[in-house]
């Protein structure tokens, strides 16, 4: 069974134990928090640094953007967590970049310049969570109809919808 003591929590612990990991090396300056839990490396960066962080891991060999999604920690603040999953075909490793965003004017720079494949994913997060991605070529709703009110995957959005 899972043992919580097996996880490395905090930037200092992870960066000491995994000093040779290419993602750790690449993000030494940009990381503000880190964890290594269940064999998965998560590095938290500030929202304004996400493009720089993506370029840094890309230069370190993480060539393929897999996934972007958000988690709504309502009513906690900062409310939104964005999880970027990036894999390296040559290193056969994966890294999760994490960005925390407050609820007021939630906005994170778009990474479509680094990976055009983030296009649909950012539109999806915009549609279902209402997070803005400045720099995105066309940020419109993708799942819901254009005239839809609200963002369904937010935790304060009722499962049955507004009646």
């Amino acid at each position, binding site marked *: 069974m899972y043992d919580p003591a097996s996880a490395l929590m905090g930037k200092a612990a992870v960066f000491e134990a995994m000093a040779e990991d290419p993602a750790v090396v690449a993000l030494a300056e940009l990381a503000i928090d880190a964890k290594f839990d*269940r064999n998965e490396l998560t590095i938290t960066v500030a929202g304004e640094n996400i493009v720089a962080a993506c370029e840094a891991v890309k230069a370190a060999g993480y060539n*393929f953007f897999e996934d972007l999604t958000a988690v709504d920690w309502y009513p906690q603040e900062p409310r939104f967590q964005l999880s970027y999953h990036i894999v390296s075909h040559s290193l056969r490793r994966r890294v*999760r970049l994490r960005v925390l965003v407050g609820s007021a004017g939630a906005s994170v720079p778009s990474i479509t310049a680094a990976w055009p*494949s983030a296009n649909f994913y950012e539109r999806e997060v915009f549609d279902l969570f209402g997070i803005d991605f400045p720099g995105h*070529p066309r940020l419109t709703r993708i799942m819901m109809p254009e005239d839809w009110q609200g963002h369904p995957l937010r935790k304060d959005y009722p499962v049955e919808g507004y009646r």
Partner: protein
Amino acid sequence: MAPSAAPDRITPGVEDVVAGAKLHGNAGTGEHSMVLNMGPQHPSTHGVLRVVLELDGEIVVALAPDIGYLHTGIEKTCEAKFYQQVVPLTDRIDYLSPMTNNLAYCLAVEKLLGLEIPERAQLLRVLLNEITRIESHLVWLGTHAMDIGALTIFLYCWREREATLRIFEAVSGQRMMSSYFRIGGLALEPPKGFFETVQAFLDDMPSKIDQYEGLLTGNPIWMGRLKGVGTISAADAIALGVTGPPARSAGVDWDLRRDMPYSGYEKFKFDVPVSNDGDVWARYTVRMLEMRESVKICLQAMQMLAGKTGPIRADAPKIVLPDREKMKTQMEALIHHFKIVTEGFAVPAGEVYQAVESPRGEMGYYVVSDGTAKPYRVHMRNPSFATLQALETMCKGRLIADVVAVIGSIDIVLGEIDR
């Protein structure tokens, strides 16, 4: 517009295509510029995909996929269910490969729990996964060929698909929405005669694949419609998030079964077919070879399973439902059953991303737990969703008839795109 280094790689929106057609028409650069709406009700879009095209005569100038017609909010529904109740929802995402979805979700939750799965269950999971891959590729081949006008092959593919569906029915009681995998193992012991049925199917399958190839591979019409159509480079495939057979046929040598093994795939010997052409023809040949490799993996799994005994569920009474027999004789089993069904089981807080190689590419499940019995967030990374972004790159500058060939060749399932 995009501050991107390569703006032509960005898939445009519907508004961009319409605006572009107006601009080109008015500026006189393309006097035949027109907008064509294809779908969402169109037989060759494999579901409810809407594609808006800007055409100059019959040449595609720009193209925008418009999705969401099948959005059912499965991710939101998952948050209201216990962990074990999410399994039947995962079938409905990619309804052509239910077992792959079950596997990805179960592996993700098992990773959150730190649960060890018995070897026999792992082998059975691999066996059924590869049969699912064959089944999914058969649907792809039948419908893709039918789109292009080869009607006969469809019926042959359905004949073998029927055999795979009967195998699913034998283990799970369901032909398509099998939900056979459980968190911690499998739902039931395979029935009597199951292995004989599977063996007969596997012995038969290579000759059937020869039959399909006999109908298609040397066929001049088939070659004319497929060769050199819908090309994409390896760099574009990576930039646009393409995975699975479409990426491997463009020269991206990446298969999660080999490169990031899960569920015991490291024990199997198989080749990963790769081509460098990146056209529809390459996607056809890669998938045909993949079916043959899947048969090989299945035969190895059958060999490893032969004479093997052991449990098919992990020894975790608070997570895995007890045997019905035990419930009648042991009080603890009855209590555990009652607790799991009524309260679920708590999963330690944390987040995991588990990716598996589905027939369409990388299928990843991102599951976040807050320590309760219901998932705080479930997100599916679906291969078709990302691959659709490459549709424009593949179709631009080609004839409109090629769009149908390309949509068939990337093998999309709208259920997993819209979720």
